[in-house]
């Protein structure tokens, strides 16, 4: 499957370089993304102006569906920022980008313990509205399901990303 190849290149993990442990599935009870289950549905032709929903509302939805620009908030900061996920190729690049943007350090990720050794931990809101820890799912899956990013205080982030 495509996912395996991506995982290897971009997964954040503790361990010696060169080891090839089996990749464990995302540690949550959410249903798997439709992407991995079946062939993508055939594109449906969209009728202009139908259903008759205001453009303003459509903008709300378009933002949710286009997926590449996402808002980033940081706990305690008054402004949000926006980043384009398309610009990054892997978690490492994304985290570096966030560190630069907000002038902070994010600790190292481990599957079991999340982000250790820093004040902040990156979380994101996915398509279902759930708050997830960045890094748990394969990068491509993350990119397509991430609606919004949130840099939380590490103390608040305990409990995210733990096995249920």
């Amino acid at each position, binding site marked *: 499957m495509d996912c395996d190849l991506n995982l290897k290149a971009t997964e954040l993990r503790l361990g010696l370089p060169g080891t090839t442990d089996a990749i464990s599935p995302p540690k949550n009870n959410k249903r798997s993304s439709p992407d991995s289950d079946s062939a993508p549905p055939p594109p449906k032709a969209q009728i202009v102006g139908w259903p008759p*929903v205001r453009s303003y509302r459509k903008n*709300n939805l378009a933002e949710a569906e286009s997926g590449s620009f996402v808002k980033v908030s940081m706990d305690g900061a008054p402004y*949000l920022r926006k980043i384009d996920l398309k610009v990054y190729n892997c978690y490492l690049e994304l985290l570096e980008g966030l560190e630069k943007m907000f002038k902070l350090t994010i600790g190292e990720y481990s599957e079991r313990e999340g982000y250790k050794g820093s004040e902040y931990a990156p979380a994101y809101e996915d398509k279902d509205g759930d708050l997830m820890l960045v890094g748990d799912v394969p990068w491509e899956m993350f990119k397509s399901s991430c609606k919004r990013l949130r840099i939380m205080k590490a103390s608040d982030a305990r409990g995210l990303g733990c096995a249920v």
Partner: protein
Amino acid sequence: MDPEPKKPEDSPSNSGNSHGPVHPQSPFPDEALEKVLSFVDSHKDRSSISLVRKDWYNAERWTRSKLFIGNCYAVSPEIVAKRFRRIKSVTLKGKPRFSDFNMLPLDWGADVYPWLVMFAKVYPFLEELRLKRMTITDEGLELLAKSFPCFKALSLSSCDGFTENGLKAIASHCRNLTEVNIQDSITEDVGGGWLSCFPENFSSLEILNFSSLNGDVNFDDLERLVSRCKLLRVLKVNESITLDELQRLLVHAPRLTELGTGSFLQELTPRQYEEIETAFCNCRNLQVLSGLWEATSVYLPLLYGACASLTFLNLSVATTLQSGEFAKFLAHCPNLRCLWVSDTVEDKGLEAVGLSCPLLEELRVYPADPYDRDHLDGVTELGFLAVSRGCPKLHYVLYFCRRMTNAAVVTIVQNCPNFTHFRLCIMTPSQPDYLTNEPMDEAFGAVVKTCPKIKRLSVSGLLTDRTFEYIGKYAKDLETLSVAFAGSSDWGMQCIMEGCPKLRKLEIRDCPFGDAALLSGREKYEMMRSLWMSACSVTMKGCRLLARESPRLNVEVIREEGGNEAQALKVYVYRSVAGPRQDAPPFVLTL
């Protein structure tokens, strides 16, 4: 249009005549008449008054201070300036409603600038400007800001054309501003910096709504503004304002009657939670609540303290709301009269509405995901039924659903026979009754037969001409009709044009109505505000014929690229005393 059989020189359009203090047939002097008329507010009443006789026409025009123009192209600034001399408040509407759904090309028109130029000359004491579906540029906003020293209220609904710079001019120059109300406006990203441009001694604001503008704001400046405007009663912020910021604003404005929150997604410390809860509890006068972007169950309870007096709850952008938490929330809002929700609350959520909101008069259910045709969630006929059972006062519904049955609608209108506005949108075009596979004719037939007061109707689903027979025959009070993907032949539209005596606005798309249907209404269009027909079977020939026969109608065809030359794919017909548009772009042909 002069229904009174009068002598020709008494025609109302003849405005040059002078009048003496008392007319032979008039029982009272003009001064008395003017005094009495100064109490008449409604523009419809004033219109009727102006048609009675010449001296009444003149008295009316001298005393009118509020101008309402439902179609900016039905009249011209020059004509208005000549007739009315003392206008303080203007409401102007521009584009046809389908422009909200991207069916009109950009630069179609409805630019308010020429009107502003005229107002600056003739109405220097202008206080209010309310625009709907018009274009207002930064130049326009600057002209507005600098030309009217008494200017108080700006309301822009579904408008476009402006940026932050125009709003900065308003904030900087309008010393007596009480209202800045921007709703549903379609603009490029409009920054929030204008909120920082109000002078330090400015404190007159009573209404501030920037919820539909998505730019980030300088929160400190906003907080200072709110804290010094002691009369603020309506505050609707945008999504960039967080919960704890909102709390700080609420501390300064506990007397709010209308609140639009910012984002509801935020991790709060227990202390923050308590502070926000207290702030909401202190809002004892709240009648209207909206915003709540990304509201989830975790923080909805924060609002409970503010809900006792709520009459209008707008959760339409809270698209993460689920039925369970929504039901719990509703239990705290017993006085709701008007509710707007996203269809993520599903039928179960609507059952809770039926149980908790006995006073409900208006319900709107919007689709969270309108373009995903595979999506099977949302609401069905069951939700609508549940509401109709529990809310006998219901008279206004806008309902987007993925399936419906004739039987359900028949029951719904039996439960709620007082419908004035029935807007049903079955989202898949031409979809039949999903149980019987029949057309939805009987559903809308039931609506018009059972609800004598129906004023506005939007139909959908698989519909034959029978639906229009019913509407034409029974909907005697109908004023606005929206039709899409419906009908079988010209006869359908003819039924409407020959029935529905009070019809004012008709908008049709993707229906098999052709020239015969279009021309069947030739005598009616002058009594209507407008007709829109797109993707029907109307031809240029038919449109030209209509135009030729009706000098007081503007028949406009919007030309699109690559269309068949003989077809008229987008037709907009409206009555006008101003003649053809002077500002029509090249793709709009006036015939």
